[in-house]
């Protein structure tokens, strides 16, 4: 919750400041999440190579070219490595126009911590640019900066932040689902009225009050790609201090928008059409940003420009976007088809087919190798007859003969694979054992003998392989999440998770209600609060409730129940909970939804189909369901063979018959 907090002390100081103050930037060289696990176990994300250049270099080049003169780099995870890298780079040379300060601390757990530290140390004096260490961009933000400053001058520091967006229509490959946002804005003042991640939702709701004040022109946009570049006033850091529960920029933006009335702060946005900006937030984004870069969308940050100014990093650019570093050798009959970047001292054998791939420095590739959308980092060895599709191969990995990596595989540092193996889609192999991860968290002194406990499984990584598959050692749901974490596929999955956990909560509630004899009204209250906590629609609540109740006997007494036992235990339950049902099932549509939930369950539990009639009968008797609804469901609901089969059930037929007759009778009586 948000506390109104202390007064804005920035007001006085920022007015006195002149425009000539050097432009500052805060670069957060940590992602505070584990999306690149297990790769980021060995190397922080900001240093992962993209087009053979560390990602943080792109961010720094972007800042420098927009005229930033002082950058604060905040690192947490593996801060030493980042520090070493920066000290060696051109950014820390005395002639660099952009002075880079490196601030490290193990205590940063989120963006919020970083900004609170910025405020505590009083680092920024004026408007600053806030970016992550994995943003690749060539946007000239000076225009946005000018607009931001103008707004602050005119409106007396009301606007605290300007977010930079890039126009790109939905379906663009550089838009990842998890970063998909929908923004409502005032089209004249460019003020953000509503900001929401879509998270794969089909239905979005906007509070009406955002449209009631201000100008009369609004835009609701879904064609924006969040570049994760924001121009912040010093107040932003203060607001983070005031609200210690802000962890991410998302929290901040939502907090500001919700409390706009109280605090009087506003957020604006700047939409750029040309220019490129994207954050490498997962491997899918890595893949698409990398390919955008090779296809020169980020010009002038192209591979051959060697903007990091490193000796020997230069490469040449020839047609079909083929880039070759120094001392590259290519065997007889090998083809680099298109969009290929090959680092220095790499040698490629005969008859290889390479397309849309990035190959690092010092790699060796054997004969008859097929690479498509492969990302290979430095010192990788690939033997002959290997096929790699859309995969990431990290530093020092070895792929032996006749190995095939299907889509979205990840070979982390120093892994050995093969020979004669085909890795299924989405396999992640690392030298770190997956279970070691948890141990690592509690106990920093991970001793070696713990690792000895795990041995490489030759069936997984091949007879000569070294490494652990992250997939096999975990149970199914988790593994899929992991692959998803890395590749960042559509997020509908999370939605399902939400529903599942809601279902568990409902089950728990009902169970407790039964044990402690809680009144049904209170149960309804509890379920309602759960509904809001998980953001579940009313329809889903009803379906889940039905499902939970009908499955209750199985939950309590195991799945081996006979139909008779099942109905015996279920029917009293229905009676107890009928007020709960009645509370949710009101409209005609609700009845149908409930019926379809019942149907769905009995389609799954096909041995107990005979119980269905009894359940329906009981529900009818308890007046949970109305006869018209049941009849309508029976006549129209059948969509596939199975449900049609279900409707041919004799008991059900009889029940319907009986219902119809009852209806006739009642209507006759009515007359």
């Amino acid at each position, binding site marked *: 919750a948000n506390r109104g907090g202390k007064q804005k002390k920035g007001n006085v100081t920022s007015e006195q400041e002149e425009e000539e103050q050097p432009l500052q930037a805060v670069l957060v060289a940590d992602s505070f999440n584990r999306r690149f696990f297990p790769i980021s176990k060995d190397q922080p994300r900001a240093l992962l190579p993209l087009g053979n250049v560390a990602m943080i270099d792109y961010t720094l080049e972007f800042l420098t070219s927009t005229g930033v003169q002082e950058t604060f780099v905040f690192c947490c995870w593996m801060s030493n490595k980042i520090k070493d890298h920066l000290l060696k780079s051109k950014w820390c040379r005395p002639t660099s126009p952009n002075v880079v300060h490196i601030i490290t601390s193990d205590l940063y757990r989120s963006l919020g911590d970083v900004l609170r530290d910025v405020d505590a140390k009083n680092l920024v004096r004026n408007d600053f640019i806030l970016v992550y260490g994995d943003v690749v961009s060539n946007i000239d933000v000076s225009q946005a900066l000018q607009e931001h400053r103008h707004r602050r001058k005119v409106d007396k520091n009301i606007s605290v932040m300007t977010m930079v967006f890039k126009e790109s229509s939905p379906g663009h490959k550089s838009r990842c689902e998890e970063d998909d946002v929908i923004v409502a804005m005032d089209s004249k003042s460019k003020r953000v009225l509503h900001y929401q991640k879509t998270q794969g939702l089909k239905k979005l709701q906007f509070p009406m009050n955002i449209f009631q004040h201000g100008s009369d022109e609004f835009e609701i946009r879904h064609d924006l790609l969040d570049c994760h570049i924001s121009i912040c006033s010093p107040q932003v850091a203060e607001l983070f201090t005031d609200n210690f529960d802000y962890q991410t920029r998302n929290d901040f933006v939502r907090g500001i928008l919700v409390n706009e009335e109280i605090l009087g702060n506003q957020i604006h946005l700047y939409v750029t*059409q040309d220019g490129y900006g994207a954050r490498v937030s997962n491997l899918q984004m890595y893949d698409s940003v990398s390919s955008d870069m090779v296809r020169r969308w980020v010009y002038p940050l192209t591979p051959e420009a060697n903007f990091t100014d490193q000796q020997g990093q230069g490469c040449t650019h020839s047609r079909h976007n083929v880039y070759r570093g120094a001392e590259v050798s290519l065997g007889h009959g090998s083809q680099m088809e298109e969009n290929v970047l090959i680092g220095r001292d790499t040698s490629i054998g005969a008859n290889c087919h390479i397309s849309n791939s990035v190959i690092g420095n010092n790699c060796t590739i054997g004969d008859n190798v097929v690479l498509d959308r492969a990302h290979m980092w430095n010192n990788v060895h690939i033997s002959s007859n290997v096929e790699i599709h859309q995969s990431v191969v990290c530093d020092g990995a070895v792929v032996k003969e006749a190995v095939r990596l299907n889509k979205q595989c990840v070979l982390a540092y120093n892994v050995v694979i093969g020979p004669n193996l085909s890795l299924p889609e989405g396999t992640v192999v690392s030298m770190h054992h997956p279970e070691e991860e948890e141990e690592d968290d509690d106990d920093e002194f991970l001793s070696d003998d713990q690792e000895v406990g795990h041995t490489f499984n030759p069936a997984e990584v091949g007879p000569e392989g070294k490494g652990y598959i992250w997939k096999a050692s975990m149970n199914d749901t988790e593994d899929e999440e992991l692959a998803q974490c890395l590749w960042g596929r559509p997020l509908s999955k999370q939605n399902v998770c939400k529903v599942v956990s809601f279902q568990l909560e409902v089950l728990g509630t009902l169970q407790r209600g039964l044990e402690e004899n809680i009144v049904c009204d209170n149960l309804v209250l509890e379920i309602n609060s759960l509904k809001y906590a998980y953001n579940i629609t009313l329809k889903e609540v009803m379906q889940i409730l039905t499902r939970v109740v009908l499955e209750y006997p199985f939950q309590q007494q195991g799945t081996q129940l006979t139909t008779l036992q099942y109905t015996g235990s279920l029917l009293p339950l229905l009676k107890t909970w009928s007020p709960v049902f009645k509370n949710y099932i009101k409209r005609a549509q609700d009845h149908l939804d409930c019926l379809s939930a019942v149907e769905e369950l009995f389609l799954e539990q096909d041995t107990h189909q005979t119980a269905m009639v009894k359940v329906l009968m009981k529900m009818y008797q308890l007046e949970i369901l109305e006869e018209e609804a049941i009849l309508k469901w029976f006549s129209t609901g059948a969509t596939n063979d199975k449900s049609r089969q279900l409707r041919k059930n004799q008991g059900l037929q009889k029940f319907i018959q009986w219902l119809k007759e009852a209806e006739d009778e009642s209507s006759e009586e009515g007359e």
Partner: protein
Amino acid sequence: MPGADKETDLTERIEAFLADLKRGGSGTGPLRGSGEMARETTYLLRRITAQARWSSAGDLMEIIRNEGRRMTAAQPSETTVGNMVRRVLKIIREEYARSRGSSEETEQQESLHKLLTAGELSEETFREHFVHLKANVIEAINELLTELDGTTDNIAMQALEHIHSNEVIMTVGRSRTVEAFLKDAARKRKFHVIVAECAPFCQGHEMATGLSKVGIETTVIADAAIFAVMSRVNKVIIGTQTVLANGGLRAVNGTHSVALAARHHSTPLIICAPMFKLSPQFPNEEDTFHKFVSPHEVLPFTAGEILSKVNVHCPVFDYVPPELITLFISNIGGNAPSYIYRLMSELYHPEDHKL
């Protein structure tokens, strides 16, 4: 230490210039005109001459060559920078030779006869120290700067010799030199200019507004209409990014089609190019010849899904072979393409062709 200060100041300037070069060109060609680029390079070289530590002409040439190499590597398509470096190197050679009392002319050409008779190449070391060399070199560079300042005017002055009343002139894209050239002619004569818009950057629009402001009758056409309109055109006057050593051009995309259309209709093709655009580069050095920028202008990023299914390229330059060109107008007069080699040898020392 003031000396050290000076040096860091100098390196800072060089780094800033290099960074500028690397970022130069957001797609619409260089941010600054090549004339300005040439001047800036020369200013920087003058500063290096004045502030760097060197005791003999050889040292200075080494320093300048090194910096020049870095500058050209930073933005290979910006040939003016390399050209100015070569010009300054040539100046140093001449000043050194003058200080020694011998004339540069006699040593310049390595003829086959000389190679045979001399036995081995006479290696000039440039190691002798002369007190006034620095002042002389700076003086000569200043002269070069004055020459650069006057180039556009010098070219524009010749306009009346080439443009006659009631002619129809075609040009493509935007060139500051051509704009000045046409404007100069417009003060005395009345003529019609057709500007090809030069997609995808459409610099032609800018050119047309500039021309119409001074009262020249201007028409903008799409690039596709070039051939159709060519039959009405009396002369084609265009600018270029670089004049290559063989007399060909590296000019903005679309120039080649203009040149071919002009050849088909036997329309004279006149190139307005100041001398600093003359480069000892040949068109076969493919890697640095082309420049591909962000494909945004061709197919906007907003196009969405289609982008992952197609390859989009956006090249900036065209090569125009010398046989399509009628005349070069430079600040020192008009020349035929076949004469370029001679100008080349006057401007640059053969040993400096490769930095």
